[in-house]
């Protein structure tokens, strides 16, 4: 008998050890099998939602459990839960990279239906932001509280020295076309400065004035004239030595924000300064302010040749959730609650997509880092100009593939035709269902 007990205990202990090794740490102190109704489960890939969650808990007396999964693993971890419903969240966020795929996958509750009726407040949102949360049938699946249009951040001191002014409007006018950008770049070069850190900086303007979706409704790959011309612009930037040869996110790319950096070209080494960085709203708070402390106050933001947006986070209610009402209350707080959003915007500087709030606060915004400029108003203006309806689920990967092909051409390893052909082949290989001419 005792033997039996001992062996059973050891087996138990062993199983715990073996199974324990397979469980994964979700980074939350989950209440495990607590009753379904008093805990709201939220999944996201940043800690951004911590503040709204606190507010929500205080207001409603509901406990919220936030699970944060790093963006690299987020889709792969969340998908199985959504497919099976086991351990699935009530509310979860989606990033622009996979947003389009998810709104069509049916994971999110249809918010155009009763009792949500979000279509009634469609006019309260920046058009492109509201539009992105719609599935292929036009039903809203996810909403976003923010808008993430981009601009060109530049150093005021260099602008004054080279262009004779540091006024964002005037400089924006100089850069309102690609030719204008190159004129400014030439002037910068004459004074020994570099226009951009690398040629990838202008990829956001590759759409040109008439943006089109990568894949149209007939499922055909669309490579517009503008996109092909972008190849030449990128090559020209490299060939004419307008860049500091510092690829995005590389150490020298960050360094160029606050210090002179060294560039080795054609057998000589020169020390130069980078004039501008092409970044969106969040680039100010999470990139520039962190990396350019020494040059704080010397920056301003203005428009490039065409409006663009980069990134963004949407959120919605899981269609299999057992607490849809509470879940939607949370979504509402984050996307429609005037009081909360006003505090949020003033605290974080996040540019909101919800007009009732932005209309109230946009006039008296100013950022010390940008020399007191009201960047809020600027970004809202850009956001309104963004063409809705051209984002597809293929964008993220096709942009990456196209970027790689462009780089081959820029570095002179392939001709333009070869680079385009290679891109088409890659696109076809990644997405066999797309029609590629």
């Amino acid at each position, binding site marked *: 008998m005792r033997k039996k007990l001992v*062996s*059973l205990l*050891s*087996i138990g202990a*062993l*199983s715990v050890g*073996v*199974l324990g090794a*397979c469980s994964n740490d979700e980074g939350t102190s989950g209440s495990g099998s607590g009753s379904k109704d008093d805990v709201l489960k939220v999944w996201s890939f940043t800690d951004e939602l911590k503040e709204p969650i606190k507010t929500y808990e205080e207001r409603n007396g509901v406990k919220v459990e936030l699970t944060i999964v790093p963006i690299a693993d987020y*889709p*792969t971890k969340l*998908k199985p839960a959504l*497919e099976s419903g086991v351990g699935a969240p009530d509310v979860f966020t989606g990033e622009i990279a996979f947003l389009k*795929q998810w709104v069509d*996958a049916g994971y999110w509750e249809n918010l155009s239906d009763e009792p949500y009726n979000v279509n009634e407040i469609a006019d309260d949102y920046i058009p492109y932001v509201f539009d992105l949360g719609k599935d292929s049938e036009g039903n809203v699946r996810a909403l976003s509280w923010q808008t993430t249009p981009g601009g060109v951040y530049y150093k005021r001191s260099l602008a004054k020295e080279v262009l004779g002014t540091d006024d964002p409007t005037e400089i924006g006018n100089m850069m309102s076309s690609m030719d204008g950008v190159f004129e400014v770049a030439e002037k910068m070069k004459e004074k020994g400065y570099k226009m951009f850190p690398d040629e990838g900086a202008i990829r956001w303007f590759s759409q040109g004035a008439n943006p089109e979706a990568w894949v149209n409704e007939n499922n055909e790959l669309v490579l517009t004239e503008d996109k092909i011309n972008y190849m030449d612009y990128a090559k020209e930037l490299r060939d004419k030595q307008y860049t500091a*040869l*510092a690829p995005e996110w*590389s*150490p*020298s790319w960050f360094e160029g924000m606050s210090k002179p*950096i*060294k*560039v*080795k*070209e*054609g*057998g000589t*080494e020169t020390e130069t300064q980078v004039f501008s960085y092409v970044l969106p709203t969040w680039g100010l708070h999470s990139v520039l302010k962190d990396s350019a402390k020494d040059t704080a106050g010397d920056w301003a933001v203005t428009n490039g040749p065409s409006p663009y947006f980069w990134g963004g986070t949407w959120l919605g209610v899981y269609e299999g959730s057992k607490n849809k009402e509470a879940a939607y209350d949370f979504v509402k707080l984050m996307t429609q609650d005037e009081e909360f959003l006003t505090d949020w915007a003033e605290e974080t500087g996040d540019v909101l997509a919800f007009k009732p709030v932005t209309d109230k606060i946009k006039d008296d915004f100013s950022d010390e880092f940008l020399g007191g400029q009201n960047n809020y108003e600027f970004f809202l203006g850009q956001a309104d100009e963004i063409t809705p309806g051209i984002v597809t689920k293929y964008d993220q*990967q096709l942009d*990456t*593939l196209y*970027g*790689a092909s462009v*780089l*081959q051409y820029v*570095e002179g*390893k*392939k001709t333009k035709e070869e680079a385009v052909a290679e891109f088409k082949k890659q696109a076809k*290989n*990644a*997405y*066999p269902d797309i029609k590629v001419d």
Partner: protein
Amino acid sequence: MKKLDRYGYAFIAPFWVVFLTFSIYPVFLTLYYSFTNYTGSPGEEIVGFANYARLLTDTYFIEAFVNTIKIWGVNFALQIGLALLLALLFSDLRLKLKGLAFFRSFFYLPNLITISSVALLFGILLDWQHGSLNMMLLKLGIISDPINWLSQPVTAQLSVSLILTWMWFGHSFIIVMAGVSGISKDFFEAAHIDGANRWQMFTFVTLPLLKPILLYIMITSLIGGLQLFDLPLLLTDGIGAPDGSLNTMVLYLYNQAFKYNNYGYAAAVAYGLFLITLVFSAVVFKGMFRKERAAQKGA
């Protein structure tokens, strides 16, 4: 007696439950997916051998196969060569080198660093404009313009090979050393008396007796090498830049599955990889032992 048997089964049950759930089931599920057009959400259709037919004519997969073999081959030759050379030096009766224990751990150290740190470290060392390597070469006047190591196919592949060698030669060295110390001193002394020089000792005594050890290193390295994935993913853009030269088989599988959501096709790639590994291992195994069997038959 019978009772004891039952306890035994109970003891191994936890392992089997876990093994069946987390290893065997996924293997068969993958096999099933490889015959479907599964894209990550339910509702897949059976497509028969379409994925495998595509695999055989897929230039990117063939490219990935060639790249993987190239990168692994260069790395393995250097790794085993270095390990043997070091083992030879340390086991030489006449040299009597000191500090074996120290060097053993010292050479093994690179293997303990996580691969992402390694990728970051070499990314910085090999950086085109600001990398230490280019700085040094420029200062020494060996080159006049910095070389963009990770943007030329040949140097990019070579870089990965050398990083892998740096990471793994210590591991091979330890195993070879263990093999060498397992060889009886009598052989060496006998060869010494017969007037064999160092090279002859190495080729006629050490190498033949090390054969099983070398075979073990080769098979494990091959299986690991065919699964090369993390370095190419982290060193460049994650899709095999420059110009597909760092596109390896597992990287291709990963991109097909998790970036392009072609799970069905990725499953077929996984089985293709499995077959390739099987064939290679069998060839290596046979090649190593055929001679011996022939010798035994002839005797």
